[in-house]
């Protein structure tokens, strides 16, 4: 008797060392009587330690695919396994807890809490853990050192440049040691020089710390930093 499809994907992805295993994934939106397809029958594997760039024109579905992998959106059908967990089957509460331990987010506009200092912003994900105050402080200081902002811990976001804010966001994404870091246009709001610095930082995180990174970008230069490029057009993966 053949094993169920999901079990097959899980076993296959575990065997291959896949971080992300996507099978038959579709996503559509309903507007009145209309069904608008965004992603159509996506099959994709991303291995542990990869630095992947998702590219494609506007409306191609790359951000939607990233959101689905990050567990902040639900697919219409199909299966998404991240680190062996079929996240499409998780309840909202379980998914929140899963995101807290498995996903680090980097957003185009940094999304820092304006009323918190850089230190407090980076510490936020650790508030969901059982770490002591001292342990949290040590980790935050380490992460801030890693992104080169040890001297900016007490600054508020509006006291930092765009590049510095994105570094704080990267430190926040790293702090809980997630399984995967997802970055949605991380350099989209930065000038060329600062963008290069941020990309170099991501590259270093991937090469030196072995962090798995999935990045959505329009910018071919940014995509050039990734080890693998995935193109999407009209919701379909293209070679």
């Amino acid at each position, binding site marked *: 008797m053949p094993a169920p499809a999901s079990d097959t994907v899980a076993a296959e992805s575990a065997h291959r060392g896949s971080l992300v295993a996507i099978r038959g994934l579709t996503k559509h939106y309903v507007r009145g009587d209309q069904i608008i397809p965004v992603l159509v029958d996506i099959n994709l594997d991303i291995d542990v330690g990869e630095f992947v760039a998702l590219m494609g024109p506007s409306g191609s579905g790359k951000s939607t695919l990233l*959101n689905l992998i*990050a567990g*902040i*959106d639900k697919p219409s059908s199909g299966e998404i396994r991240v680190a062996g967990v079929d996240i499409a089957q998780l309840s*909202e*509460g379980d998914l*929140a*807890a899963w*995101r*807290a*331990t498995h996903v680090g*987010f980097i*957003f*185009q*506009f940094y*999304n820092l*809490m*304006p*009323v*918190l200092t850089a230190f*407090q912003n980076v510490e*936020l*994900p650790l*508030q*969901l853990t059982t770490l002591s105050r001292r342990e949290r402080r040590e980790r935050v200081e380490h992460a801030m050192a890693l992104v080169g902002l040890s001297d900016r811990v007490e600054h508020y976001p509006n006291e930092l440049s765009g590049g510095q804010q994105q570094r704080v966001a990267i430190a*926040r994404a790293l702090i809980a040691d997630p399984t995967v870091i997802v970055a949605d246009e991380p350099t989209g709001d930065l000038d060329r020089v600062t963008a290069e610095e941020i990309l170099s930082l991501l590259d270093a995180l991937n090469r030196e710390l072995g962090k798995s990174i999935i990045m959505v970008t329009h910018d071919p230069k940014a995509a050039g930093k990734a080890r693998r490029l995935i193109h999407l057009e009209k919701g379909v993966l293209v070679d």
Partner: protein
Amino acid sequence: MPFLVLRNAFRHKLRTTLTMVGIVVAIVAFGLLRTIVDAWYAGSEASSSARLITRSSISLVFFLPLNYAQKIRQVDGVKSVSWMNWFGGIYITEANFFPQFAVDAPTFLGMYPEYRLDEAERKAFLLDRGGAVAGRKLADKYGWKVGDRIPLRGTIFPGTWTFTLRAIYDGADNKVDETQFFFHWDYLNETVKARFPRRADLVGLYVVEIRDPAQAAEISQRIDATFRNSLAETLSETEKAFQLGFVAMTEAILIAIEAVSFVIILIIMAVMANTMAMTARERYSEYATLKAIGFSNGFVALLIFAESLGIALAGGAIGIALTFPIADWFAGQMGTLFPVFFVSPDTVAMQVGAALVVGVVAALIPAWRAAHVRIVDGLRAVA
């Protein structure tokens, strides 16, 4: 994360301050109006269940014969009987209004232990037929001291009546009216007998002390039955019912005051809800970010509830603290119109309850919306 709530609350300092000022004003106004309502009921609240009032069944303005006292005393269940007349005199000008009663002093003081007199002053009053007793607030208001001569111009009983202040009473608690003025009924009756003989030996009402308060209804019926089919039929009721009869005359005003007090809370609730709705709408992207990094929907809702409750309770606390001095000032301005005027613990509890309700209700819809906004939609608000 209290620091996040606190920082969020004072993010827009002007908006938060103005909202808080609104809550302070609403809570003070609510407390003051509730206190006015309480003051209206103060007489009935301070009344004793062991005392009945017997008056003319036709109207309070009709007198009863003095000889009813002996017959009432003989009714089963009656412990003692006293009587009084409303005097209605004017002290210097009409503006200086305060209640004045001619009382049968020995029985009256025995029946009202809540009026506390110095023993020496009590004796001095009982011995002096032209003596009088004033409440502490009344004496303080006009600067009277024991021994002062106090002239009253009679309206019901014409002429100038001069009394010697022999005692000043204090209330047993803050519910006792300390703005009254008592003098000897005998002095009034003797003078009236000399000047208007047909109006002598008549009393305005009887105060009847009973042995068992549980028997008040039966004893009232027995007293009234005693005088049925007489020229002056009586109506007996508990002191509380008698006092409530006066309150009932102005019930419509009281209902209006109560309604206004609740409308004020409703208005501030709407203002607060608007503030919280604006606040939450501005922060959808932040709530979405918090949810993306693993915080639950409940946590986001809690942030909004905590902020709303924080503002409402802080405003409420300031409002409650200000209610006391404002109520004191108001009582001073009102003179003897509200003889018993204080912010009761019940009023404070209602103010706390109102602040809590404002905080919770204002946050309900914004919290629900923020908790249920899709993360991807919330994040899109950034762009």
